């Protein structure tokens, strides 16, 4: 079963590399959203440093949404989803593999960009490592919850907008604890609790959402 999951992940990574556009688009969008803030708020360094963590987290959430709607839609359009459904691998595991592939092709590139954006937003030096660590811990939840949203909207022609409305409320806990953990470590107060909650939320999402998403896919295709 693990071999099957790995071959799905490898397939999705290969497709993403070959199409290329979606990952670069997400990265470009991430940078653009963050760049807009200094223009709107002004170049005052104290204010930028104060909002930097929140802005980078929000931009990451929005960028993540951008590529979610294609997660199952492409497989639905070319008939691969039907084949997965009657195939030997449980649909729950297929969903899990696709969420992991989404995380690898979307969140990981975003995390690699955060140091540059941190410099741009005047993020205090002691905040860089905590920011990347919390994003590494928190973004899997974004992909897994997003997978649930994508499976619910797979048969809708313009599912992207409703997907955002559906999913963003569930991203709020990730945002809260992600920002709190970084702020706490910048201020020098203990951040362990926030980080643990963030990791716990990701694990919870990884354990629960594939079941719901698989059920939604089955219901949607009937």
């Amino acid at each position, binding site marked *: *079963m693990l*071999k*099957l999951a790995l*071959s799905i992940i490898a*397939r999705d990574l*290969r*497709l993403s590399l*070959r*199409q290329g556009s979606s990952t670069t688009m997400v990265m470009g969008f991430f940078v653009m959203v963050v760049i807009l803030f200094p223009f709107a708020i002004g170049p005052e360094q104290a204010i930028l440093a104060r909002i930097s963590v929140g802005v980078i987290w929000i931009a990451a959430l929005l960028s993540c949404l951008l590529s979610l709607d294609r997660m199952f839609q492409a497989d639905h*359009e*070319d*008939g*691969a989803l*039907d*084949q997965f*459904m*009657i*195939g*030997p*691998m449980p649909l729950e595991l297929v969903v899990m593999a696709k969420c992991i592939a989404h995380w690898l092709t979307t969140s990981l590139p975003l995390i690699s960009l955060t140091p540059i954006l941190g410099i741009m937003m005047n993020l205090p030096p002691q905040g860089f490592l905590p920011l990347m660590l919390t994003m590494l811990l928190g973004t899997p939840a974004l992909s897994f919850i997003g997978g649930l949203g994508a499976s619910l909207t797979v048969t809708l022609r313009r599912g992207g907008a409703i997907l955002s409305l559906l999913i963003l409320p569930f991203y709020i806990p990730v945002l809260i604890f992600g920002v709190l953990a970084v702020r706490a470590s910048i201020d020098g107060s203990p951040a362990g609790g926030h980080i643990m909650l963030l990791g716990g939320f990701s694990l919870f999402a990884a354990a629960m959402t594939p079941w719901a998403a698989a059920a939604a896919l089955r219901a949607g*295709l*009937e």
Partner: protein
Amino acid sequence: MIFSGLDFAVPPGGALILNGPNGSGKSSLLKIIAALLPAHSGLLSVGSEDILGDRDWISRNLCYLAHKNGLKPDMTVAENLTFWASMMYHDSNIGPNINDIAAQVGLAHCRDLAIRFLSSGQARRAALARVLCHPGRIWLLDEPTVGLDANGAALLAGLMNDHLAQGGRILAASHINLGIDPDKSTGLDMADFSPGASRRSVYDRAEDVIC
């Protein structure tokens, strides 16, 4: 309700050809057998085992070729086939030989071309190659000839007759003659079982029997 009172049997080495007007439920019946659609009621048995909706049995024994080919446009013929073969032969170390199968459907020269560069007929041949990569002995084919040229249709007929000769079973939905040996195939006109035509069954009941 699409159809009721349906009753059929497919012996090993036999084919069942579903025909009937558009909307008479040919594709739906195949999807019900593949557990992609739920049946309101009915029985589908192999031996004494009821397999209606039994995903585990279906995944090992049914090979379903739908209208859509199930192939990734951005991957080559060989990559697509290797992927599906690895899915289907995950528990054994030996799988089908992709090169042989590509040659069998006449795609040996474009095994390293992405599917999006192929014509629709060639893509359909690649989908047939995917069927050949499947260990399942029961083929569900939904309009398998769509997009195929005369040579392709003849090739398909050859593949299907070979499959039947080896004791496999085929359930195919088609409007045209698929070229299967007439001794081995039976026709089923879905129009006979549509709610308007059939007054035979009072209850909403379908009885489907394989084997």
